[in-house]
């Protein structure tokens, strides 16, 4: 087990486990944490898992972990690892089962005071328009041909059907469509799971959240994003549903033989991988991109459904009920990117699992209005606390592979949360605080209680203190819809 004395302090927000800590490490681990968060992370296996990630062939120094890190399986949640495209590997387990799990933020011009009397109706309407819960099926039942189109087109599939705007796509990471997706590399089983689940929220920690924009920290960035204090906004947190889960399952299973074929030795079988430049690696990346595009389309369809709910509730009651897209980001993804390493550009596959891309100002892919500022970063908190809008920085490009945190990060196991917290009592408590709750199950609600998570404000203060993101606005939830 790693001990505090094994970890070198660089400054108040940055620590390091040197590559000499264990014989099989190929890189150091850089931690963006305060001392308090670091001590908390020693309670579970997240640091062991980060050390294991440094053994991936072709990994480039350092492997990074964020303040919201916690123990996952194979690779820690909140981890970032970059591997050389030339001779490195891609690891499905280091991206996760919910491929392109991510967050979309929509904002409105509706003042909270005008919305307040209608929030309960809004929660009901959102719950009706956005199907949620275990294995839920949505209104889109796709043929195999249509599903293949979703895999190739991503959110553009929705645009073709009038369910998205050009602005929605422009304000989505990668324009809502990753190049190089190949549905032929996706199994029949994955397609069977994916055909009926498009446009659904699912269960677990996925949710819709109506927020009030409580405080703006960066007026210039907030203005560009259309975020104004006191107005309503909507967060959507979900991913590629059973489609992505099955793709990851299939490739983690198939690559068990690839590691033997390529003579790769790993400390944990969940880290199985294949060279990026190999048939197995290329197949996985093509399938992963198909799942990523499915997730972009899924969040787009949920945004469309949410707009219908807003119209139903607010038309005739407020002057402008339109929800405009602020941004859509992924926090479980593998991306081929070029980063400066020792002053020279290097093409790497950046594995982000529970970490958000946070590119700094000047990045060409960003919409024109965000390019001088940096990439928006969306950080959902736990129910009843806060969510954050941040922006990427030049420091994140230099220190963290252009990445930052993705959420609050769990501290309490689901089992313990269910034992200690009663769902009904939690719902009543949230309602008393003016947060309207719709939940598929009370035990599911209890598992996601705020007490089960770290303090999201502390996480955000840490990344801001480290300089790997800048604060734009703090959002306070007023309605939560959970599967």
């Amino acid at each position, binding site marked *: 087990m790693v001990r505090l004395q094994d970890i070198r302090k660089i400054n108040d927000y940055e620590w390091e486990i040197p590559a000499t800590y264990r014989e099989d490490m190929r890189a150091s681990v850089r931690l963006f944490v305060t001392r308090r968060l670091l001590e908390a992370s020693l309670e*579970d296996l*997240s640091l062991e898992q980060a050390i294991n990630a440094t053994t991936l062939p072709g990994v480039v120094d350092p492997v990074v972990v964020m303040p919201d890190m*916690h*123990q*996952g*399986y*194979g690779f820690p*949640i909140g981890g970032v690892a970059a591997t050389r495209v030339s001779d490195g590997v891609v690891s499905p*387990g280091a991206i*996760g*089962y*919910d491929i392109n799990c991510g967050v979309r933020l929509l904002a409105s011009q509706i003042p909270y005071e005008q919305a307040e009397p209608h929030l309960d109706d809004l929660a009901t309407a959102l719950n009706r328009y956005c199907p949620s819960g*275990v*294995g839920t099926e949505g209104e889109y039942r796709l043929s195999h041909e249509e599903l293949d189109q979703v895999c190739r087109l991503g959110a553009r599939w929705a645009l073709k059907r009038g369910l998205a705007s050009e602005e929605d796509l422009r304000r989505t990471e990668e324009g809502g469509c990753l190049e190089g997706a190949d549905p032929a590399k996706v199994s029949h*089983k994955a397609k*069977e*799971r994916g055909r009926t689940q498009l446009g659904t929220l699912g*269960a*677990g920690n996925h949710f819709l959240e109506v927020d009030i924009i409580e405080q703006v920290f960066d007026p210039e960035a907030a203005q560009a994003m259309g975020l104004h204090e006191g107005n309503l906004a909507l967060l959507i947190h979900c991913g590629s549903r*059973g489609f992505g*889960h*099955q793709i*990851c*399952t299939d490739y*983690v*299973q198939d690559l*068990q*033989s690839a590691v*033997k074929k390529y003579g790769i030795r790993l400390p*944990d*079988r*969940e880290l*199985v991988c294949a060279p990026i430049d190999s048939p197995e690696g290329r197949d996985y990346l093509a399938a992963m991109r198909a799942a990523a595009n499915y997730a972009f389309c899924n969040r787009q369809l949920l945004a469309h459904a949410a707009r219908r709910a807003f119209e139903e509730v607010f038309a005739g009651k407020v002057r402008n009920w339109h929800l405009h897209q602020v941004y859509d980001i992924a926090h479980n993804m593998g991306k081929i990117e070029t980063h400066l390493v020792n002053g020279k550009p290097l093409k790497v596959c950046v594995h982000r699992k529970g970490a958000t891309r946070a590119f700094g100002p000047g990045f060409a892919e960003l919409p024109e209005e965000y390019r001088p500022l940096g990439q928006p970063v969306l950080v959902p908190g736990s129910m009843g606390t806060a969510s954050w809008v941040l922006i990427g920085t030049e420091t994140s490009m230099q220190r963290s592979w252009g990445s930052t945190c993705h959420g609050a990060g*769990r*501290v*309490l*196991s*689901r*089992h*313990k949360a269910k034992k200690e917290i009663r769902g009904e009592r939690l719902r009543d408590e949230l309602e008393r605080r003016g947060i309207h709750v719709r939940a598929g*199950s009370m*035990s*599911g609600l209890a*598992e996601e209680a705020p007490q089960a998570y770290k303090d999201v404000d502390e996480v955000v203060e840490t990344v801001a203190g480290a300089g790997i993101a800048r604060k734009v606005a703090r959002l306070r939830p007023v309605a939560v819809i959970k599967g």
Partner: protein
Amino acid sequence: MNEIPSSGFEEIRHTADWALRVWASDLPTLFTQAAQGMYRLEGVEIASTPRVERQITIKGEDAESLLVAFLNELLYLQETEQLAFDTFQCAITNHSLEIKAQGGPIRHLNKAIKAVTFHNLSIRTTPQGLETTLTFDV
């Protein structure tokens, strides 16, 4: 003093996901216990009628691969056909698994598992038989 049963399962601590320790005297019983433990974590209840049967054939690198593939196959049937199983007849060799599974439609499910992982997975020999720890992504 209560005697520890020769086969069984128990949930163990994990921060974000679910983990299950499973033990049995032999490999087929270990597979059966793992399936029953997984369904217990999910809060699956099976309707008494109609009874259904599925033949599951799996190939894999080793016993651990077969175990993960078997449980993932059950999750696939759970999601696509809303079926769960309570009776298993297993025939296992080094690289293949034949299972006759009997069960029925799912009457109730609390929370679905996304996937069964290989995280630190190893089927160990103990004085009582076999033991392993499974981690599930939820």
